[in-house]
């Protein structure tokens, strides 16, 4: 066991973990932040996408110990302080960007990173950026619309 400390959604956290613990496991099972989803065992679905020091990564493909001292943001950190939905989340709700919602946390985290790097992405750019996020329900069209709407609102 090793001890690990990081900042998650603005709060300092510390834990005792087995060295093999994945970041996604630490978030879900130790911190009970179950918004970060696990959709595969092969690093392909993107449901586990979180931000580490401002960069989107697959939480299931990074060791918790590699996030020592890092600033981590999860879907739970995307809502506004009063608990209402953030702009991207609200756009997904408004534009029917989700059905079962399983992929949505990863989609929102990926979209957030995209819009930070590119405030007005084209449809092609959005599709390419989401190539690591798989949705089995929506057919993606409404996800694209949601992100375009969020981009327009965020300016």
């Amino acid at each position, binding site marked *: 066991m090793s001890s690990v400390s990081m900042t998650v959604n603005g709060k300092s956290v510390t834990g005792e973990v087995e*060295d093999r613990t994945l970041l996604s496991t630490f978030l879900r099972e130790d911190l009970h932040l179950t918004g970060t989803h696990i959709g595969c065992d*092969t690093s392909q679905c993107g449901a586990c996408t979180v931000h580490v020091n401002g960069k989107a990564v697959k939480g299931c493909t990074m060791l918790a110990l590699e996030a020592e001292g890092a600033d981590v943001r999860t879907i739970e950190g995307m809502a506004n302080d009063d608990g209402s939905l953030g702009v991207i989340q609200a756009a997904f709700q408004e534009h029917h960007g989700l059905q079962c919602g399983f992929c949505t946390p990863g989609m929102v985290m990926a979209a957030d990173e995209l819009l930070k790097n590119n405030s007005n992405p084209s449809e092609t750019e959005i599709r390419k950026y989401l190539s690591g996020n798989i949705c089995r329900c929506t057919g993606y069209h409404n996800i694209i619309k949601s992100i375009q709407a969020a981009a327009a609102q965020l300016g």
Partner: protein
Amino acid sequence: MYNFVFEKPTTVAEAVAALASEDAQALGGGQTLLPTMKQRLASPAKLVSLTGIAEMGGTSSTGDVITIGGGVTHADVAAGGYGAISKLAGDIGDPTVRNRGTIGGSLANNDPSADYPAAALASGATIKTNARSIAADDYFTGLFDTALEDAEIIVSVDFPVPLSSNYQKFEQPASRFALVGVFVAKFADGVRVAVTGASEGGVYRWTEAETALNANFSADALDGLSVSADNMISDLHGTPEYRANLVKVLTGRAVADC
């Protein structure tokens, strides 16, 4: 994934020492190794993270040679403005893979469908380890096999800058690896063509094309050449014949876009 002991040294020398113990393995970005361990196809007793080693970070350019640290992520190479190599890095996997995966990890792994091996071989790159310098022509020794010894670490990679170069990747849409990829680099002293994704032996140089292009650097120069389907990879995504055809088509496109 089986448990292991994790270490995170801050120098190459410490990492080499940590790797000396039995069943120790280097951990780069983890984008290949961690999924492999989750499938229990690898079970190292110790993982030595290379992500805290400053000597392995950073890129620099002298104009003639671009040097990329072994721990530099695909995302950082993509943003570096290094022509075809940056374009190649920006098309690896997806953004999250690029934010963690490193050039050292990709070259050490030498997946037969990986992108960087084509860039390194076509550029005549030099792989610099903690112990020695290895020319790309001597480095790729077969499927998932390289000239690296146990516990040898890729510290940096030198890419000679060509007059012009281009990489054409025919993406396998589900994995986003190359179904076939061809990197063409034109230097003052000749053209080099490297092919990934096609051969069961891993990345290779298509020397007939190099000869033809040295005589006439145009896509037409390839017209008379044929690519044999012998030893080409066969899987549900493409037959050997399909891959052989792609080698020629993509080489032509790369030359045209050079």
